[in-house]
């Protein structure tokens, strides 16, 4: 047995192996105590740290992904809201423009009608005035013509009716020619 080469077994025989040697109890106690303190101070906290770091590295990644997802969802929500706002704004503007346009159209129509009526009225007035003028000048001319006609009739012999009508017709043809 190799253990017996370096370490000779005691010659003392008869000490029962179940009777503990007090020195060995103390050695076992102290040795384990030293190991315990060492392990508690230097090994367990480091192992726990590695364990915790690893857990955090895994869960942290998941959590970061979740946060990113939430942010993306929030951004999407925001953009949608902005888009809806913009659409509402555009619709409102269109509505306003339409209302404004119809107002303008109404105004223009009114203005145009007024203008038309004004033009119509002035045209009518000038027509009236011209007709009045024409009537007046006609009155004068008819008077002069009548006077001249009468003088010619009087100058000719008014003996028969045929002659008279010839005179009148000639007179009218002259008038037409002179006009």
């Amino acid at each position, binding site marked *: 047995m190799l253990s017996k080469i370096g370490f000779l077994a005691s010659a003392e025989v008869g000490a029962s192996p179940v009777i503990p040697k007090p020195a060995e109890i103390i050695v076992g106690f102290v*040795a384990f105590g030293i*190991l315990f303190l060492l*392990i508690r101070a230097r090994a367990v906290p480091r192992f726990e740290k*590695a364990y915790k770091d*690893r857990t955090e590295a895994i869960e942290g990644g998941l959590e970061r992904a979740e946060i990113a997802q939430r942010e993306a969802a929030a951004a999407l929500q925001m953009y949608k809201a902005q888009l809806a706002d913009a659409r509402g704004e555009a619709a409102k503007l269109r509505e306003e423009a339409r209302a404004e346009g119809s107002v303008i159209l109404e105004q223009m129509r009114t203005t145009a009608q007024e203008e038309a009526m004004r033009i119509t009225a002035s045209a009518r007035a000038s027509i009236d005035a011209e007709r009045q003028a024409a009537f007046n000048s006609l009155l004068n001319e008819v008077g002069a013509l009548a006077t001249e006609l009468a003088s010619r009739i009087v100058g000719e012999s008014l003996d028969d009716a045929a002659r008279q009508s010839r005179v009148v017709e000639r007179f009218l043809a002259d008038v037409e020619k002179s006009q």
Partner: protein
Amino acid sequence: MRGLWIQANPGFVPPSSADFDFQPIFGDSILFTKPVLLVFLSVILAGSFFTLSARKAAIVPSKLQFAGESIYTFIRNELGRDVIGPEFMRFVPFLFSLFIFILTNNVFGIVPLLQFPTMSHIGFPIGVTIFSYVTYHYVAIKKHGLGKYVKDICFMPGIPKPVYLILTPVELLTYLVTRPLTLSMRLFANMFAGHLLLLVFTLGGEYLLTSGLILKFLSLFSFSFAIGLSFFELGIQALQAYIFTLLTALYIAGALADEH
């Protein structure tokens, strides 16, 4: 001629408990005997191995860290978390030290040149058992108070009164004597018997070598059996370290439980 072939050397001395007694290597203090030196060697080996493997505490472990961490995680989760429950973390350093201390000292039994399981000297298991013993009593007294703890042991709730006549002495004996006694005895006896078994086959083989030719040949079987048994012993050594730690964890769990 025939006598020469199977002649048995008459001087065979079977291994006995005397083979477990060692003289000091130098001086005459018991502190310099092989078992005591082995115990301190175990502290150095186990302490440095797990300190070194834990040193970097990297998220992606090296092989060394992985080796140390695997054993640590096993004790932490299987014996700490699963047995003790939510308060397990403060007992993990103790349970872990317990396991690696006993395991290292046991495995010395089959390490070439060392070849002596230190726990086969009953003094060492007793020294360790003191820790378990004090721990589980202390935990219970701190949690429930001395009065309630003693009362719970002596008068287990929910039992018909006459039964206490038998149960109370048994329970007292269990908590105060049987538990520490069996803890240290189990470990000691297993290591003692295992070492004795290896001695029988190794010394037997050695003896056969000094005998006649046929017996010399037979020593081969004796030695191979010793080698086979060494692996068997490795299993027992690990198992005993595990059982000692498991029972300690169970006693602590019992001390923390609301009712015994």
